[in-house]
């Protein structure tokens, strides 16, 4: 099942290929002290594309980002970047790899050292990567260029982070990530700390940068509408596993995994044109502790479709028959038409399918 990504036809040669990535943390003390943060994660990212990574807090998406950046060492599995495993590299080769994958952090306030100026922050990577822009002149020129790319003025270089607004700070963070001319940027909730009007500016900037520089994004977010807007493909995470992947349209419009459907259904809609209130799936309970994940399918404790088999066998990753790129880990995946009905406004659907009523007040954990 780990080969689902490789056997799928017509894929571009992946830039970043992640296989069976597993990461456990050992929590000192308490009973079962192995926290399974990542469980056999498979991912691939092509050159210049955006992979959206969706999930609720504690599902492991930040750990995944940290592992991709080599801030954590995986327990099992491999990361291949154009065929090489960065964890096997040392010295200069490692440094060269570091240059190619960069990260933008969630909190634009905490991720910038308040004691440095914007210019110092953006040029900081060059202090380690001394060969990239060897002369002072080149660095100054590149700094000006970077500031301009992210929409700041050259005169902003001398200001300290506190003098910028949240959106401008996030621009500094993006400029810092671009300083090493990376091929992949991992964006960990890059806009969730920003106000709506500023969020739109930053999303536009990211979009623009991708088109100009051809950089690939791994875009981590819990905000479905943002992910839907930016991602080419989407991976949904739940309790350390990727439970569904597919193109953005497939995952958002025809979710196959019940959790994905519940997630889509739970997020509020802005649409006020409908007079009847929307039916929605309200899941009971909360995500189980990653210290003690359920047997079999991880979602079965909150799933309304769960059967006995879900508790005993972990569902394999299986592609949909019509959509080979649309993969879900579920014994009883939703049929496209059910999914459409589930997510549709109530006015259009509640008359036809009697099951929907039961689904709305479903929830009794199995």
């Amino acid at each position, binding site marked *: 099942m780990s080969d689902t990504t490789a056997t799928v036809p017509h894929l571009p040669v992946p830039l970043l290929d992640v296989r069976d990535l597993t990461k456990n*943390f*050992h*929590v*000192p*003390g*308490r009973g079962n002290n192995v*926290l399974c*943060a990542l469980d056999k994660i498979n991912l691939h990212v092509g050159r210049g594309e955006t992979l959206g990574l969706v999930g609720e*807090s*504690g599902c492991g*998406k*930040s*750990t995944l980002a*940290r592992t991709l950046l080599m801030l*954590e060492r995986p327990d099992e599995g491999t990361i291949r970047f154009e065929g090489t495993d960065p964890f096997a590299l040392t010295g200069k080769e490692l440094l060269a790899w570091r240059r190619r994958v960069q990260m933008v952090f*969630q*909190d634009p*306030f905490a991720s910038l050292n*308040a004691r440095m100026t914007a210019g110092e922050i953006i040029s900081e990577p060059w202090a380690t990567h001394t060969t990239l822009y060897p002369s002072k002149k080149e660095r100054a020129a590149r700094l000006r260029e970077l500031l301009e790319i992210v929409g700041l003025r050259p005169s902003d270089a001398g200001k300290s*982070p*506190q003098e910028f607004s*949240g959106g401008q700070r996030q621009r500094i963070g993006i400029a810092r990530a671009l300083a090493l001319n990376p091929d992949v940027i991992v964006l960990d*909730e890059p806009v*969730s*700390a*920003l*106000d709506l009007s500023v969020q739109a500016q930053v999303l536009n900037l990211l979009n623009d940068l991708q088109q100009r520089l051809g950089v690939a994004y791994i875009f981590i977010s*819990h*905000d479905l509408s943002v992910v839907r807007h930016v991602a080419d493909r989407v991976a949904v995470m739940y309790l350390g596993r990727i439970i569904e992947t597919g193109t953005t349209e497939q995952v958002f419009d025809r979710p196959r995994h019940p959790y994905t459907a519940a997630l889509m259904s739970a997020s509020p809609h802005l649409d006020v044109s409908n007079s009847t209130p929307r039916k929605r799936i309200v899941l009971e309970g909360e995500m189980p502790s990653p210290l003690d994940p359920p047997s079999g399918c991880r979602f079965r404790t909150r799933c309304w479709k769960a059967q006995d088999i879900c508790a005993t066998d972990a569902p394999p990753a299986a592609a949909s028959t019509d959509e080979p790129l649309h993969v879900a880990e579920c014994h009883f995946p939703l049929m496209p038409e059910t999914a459409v009905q589930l997510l549709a406004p109530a006015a259009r659907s509640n008359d036809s399918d009697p099951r929907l009523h039961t689904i709305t007040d479903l929830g009794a954990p199995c």
Partner: protein
Amino acid sequence: MLTFLRRRIVSSALPLLVVVLGVFALARLTGNPASLYLPLNATAEMRANFTAKYGFDDPLLVQMAHYFGGVLRLDFGESLRTGEPAAAMALRAFPATLQLAGTTMLLAVVLAVIVGCWAALKPNGVADRISSFVSMAAASVPDFWLAIMGILVFAITLGWVPTSGVGGATSWILPIATLLLRPFGVLVQIVRGAMVSSLSEPYIKLARSKGASEFRVVTRHALRNAAAPALTVAGDLTVSLVNGAVVVESIFGWPGIGKLMIDSILQRDFAVLQAAVLLTAVSIFILNILIDLGYAGLDARVRPAGRRKKSSRAASVVVAEPKERKIHVQTTP
């Protein structure tokens, strides 16, 4: 709870052991007591006999083994000076110090809580400024100087209290007043700081939103949360109170453990010094355990066994996970 206690006992016992061993070794370095205790014209033979009798010519490790062998049989050796059992001398001096230190800390804590809370109610207000200056001055006075000045004014000039010794109630006044100042000064600042930060916590707002009176907010909600840091510092201050006790006891001729230790160092009375150090170390050890228990009683979050705050990389990652959540930046830089 038991695991928690066991862990604490093991981790506090180590410093205890190191200190006792260190003092034992250091004391041996002060020189052979023979030169102090034998007449100046003592013969080499007399010296050798004296040395052999107390085992001072054995290698250090052998002496240690001997000594701790004795300790296990509750034999702490005898005083070179008086020939009395060292343990008896230490135990006799101990209560005097304990009473002095106990009374002082009790007074210091009570006063500091009152003054600290008063100051914290209006940060930067008049009360705050006065109390911060007073507490700072209190923590800055050299205790030996204050003791001497106290004797000069209240004992010599006014004759209200005796100059030294343990007697009636009045003889306690000067030693306690002298010892009190530093812990009081430091604690006021701690209590004030903890109260100010506690009072600005969101749970104070929650209490107010329930209609709790200001008195209830301060005493029930803020003070209980401020107590934990104050307790930690009070523990450290009690340990350092022994420092003050050494000085104060020697000035006021107070027959406590501090005076006993200074005397036995100066007279190379090793057995007594070791007994006194051991006794002090054990009481500090017990104090630390008590503080931990008090801490666990105050704050449920430290209670579960082995739950560490930021003690390893893994744990800090677990702690970091909730940060993924959506943060709407209401806070200002």
